[in-house]
């Protein structure tokens, strides 16, 4: 049971953190259509997170609610991939400010949705039938997210010198963070053992094929990746998650009994 809850929280935290990040573009999109697109992607992700938190809360069975899981846990308790909490620009310290770069947004959404189409597809046969139901819905949504981000990746990479340079810089910056996908956390191992989760390592070949094909069409180079492997999914986050959560959680914490 606790293996299932930990695994659900990993999936839910992924969705809510990227949903919150992408929502930063709402009202600030590079063009109106992309403003709408990112807001829609965020809605899907936050909707997925809600369903997953609701299931986790139900399994906890101690009166915990979805809101408590999203708004009243601190950064060390979050189990999302580090990739998803990074700001929409290149490497900076947590409190520094830079303009958002849409190339970083698109590359991240592509790398993540290229993984999630495979994860959700596999989870349709999860031993947890509620998770299997969520996976069947999320697969349809992740497919649209993949189409959207892949189209823009190709458009930017195979575009102007400026868009190509920015897309390549974003790939160089973000691809190393995907190494975290392929390590198996204790929560994932337990969920796989229970038949609830999927062994991500089995998805690597399919993910590589999707990524290599898109990068080639976008005339981008896949950088060699080595060195530090992020550990966000075991709770060791970058300096950026705390700032993201501070914004996301402040309203709920200021009015803990509020409802709408």
């Amino acid at each position, binding site marked *: 049971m606790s293996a299932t809850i930990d695994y659900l929280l990993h999936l839910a935290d992924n969705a809510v953190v990227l949903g919150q990040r992408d929502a930063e573009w709402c009202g600030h999109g590079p063009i109106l259509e992309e403003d709408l697109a990112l807001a829609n992607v965020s809605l899907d992700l936050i909707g997925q997170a*809600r369903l997953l938190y609701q299931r986790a809360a139900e399994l906890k069975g101690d009166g915990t609610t979805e809101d408590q899981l999203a708004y009243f846990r601190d950064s060390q308790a979050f189990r999302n991939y580090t990739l998803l909490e990074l700001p929409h620009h290149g490497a900076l310290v947590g409190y520094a400010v830079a303009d958002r770069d849409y190339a970083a947004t698109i590359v991240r959404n592509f790398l993540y949705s290229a993984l999630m189409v495979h994860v959700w597809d596999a989870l349709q046969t999860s031993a947890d039938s509620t998770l299997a139901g969520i996976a069947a819905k999320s697969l349809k949504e992740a497919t649209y997210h993949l189409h959207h981000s892949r189209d823009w990746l190709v458009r930017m990479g195979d575009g102007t010198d400026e868009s190509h340079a920015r897309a390549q810089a974003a790939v160089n910056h973000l691809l190393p963070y995907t190494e975290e996908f392929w390590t198996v956390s204790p929560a994932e191992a337990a969920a796989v053992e229970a038949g609830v989760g999927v062994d991500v390592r089995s998805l690597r070949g399919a993910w590589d094929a999707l990524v290599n094909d898109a990068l080639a069409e976008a005339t981008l180079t896949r950088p060699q990746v080595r060195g530090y492997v992020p550990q966000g999914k075991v709770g060791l986050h970058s300096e950026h998650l705390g700032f993201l959560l501070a914004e996301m959680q402040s309203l709920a914490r200021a009015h803990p009994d509020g409802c709408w």
Partner: protein
Amino acid sequence: MTTATLEQVWVALEGLTDPEIPVVTLRELGILRDVRSGPDGLVEVVITPTYSGCPAMGQIEDDVRATLENAGIAARVITQLSPAWTTDWMNEAAREKLRAYGIAPPHQTKPDVSVVRFMRRPAADPVACPQCGSTHTVVTSQFGSTACKALYKCLDCQEPFDYFKPY
């Protein structure tokens, strides 16, 4: 509150439409899945969510509850995730209503074209303009005014229009 027959519940809910697309009913959209007798004899109304984050779902559930209450029907509303909602559940009459309202209806989904096997995106079927019927159309954006719609433009009559995306 009275004990209504299942038929009476269906009739009471028949007039309920989608809050964003008021020309199609919840039954036609496949959101209203079932009306059945629960294990304790209470009527159960089964609805299924569309997109995970669709903001209209809360309104839809409220509408169902309010309609039942106004009709004096005691019932339980159950949200069911599986099988996942699909636009394939919309019948031809509902599709025609969408078209008349100015929204291009969704194509049938293609379960054989698995996303997991696809590399390049499969060529999309042409979407017919709901105004002039031309299939000489282009996608402006895969994401439109609501989660379930894409933005298209007709190259013949020049009208922009919404396309209800296959899901």
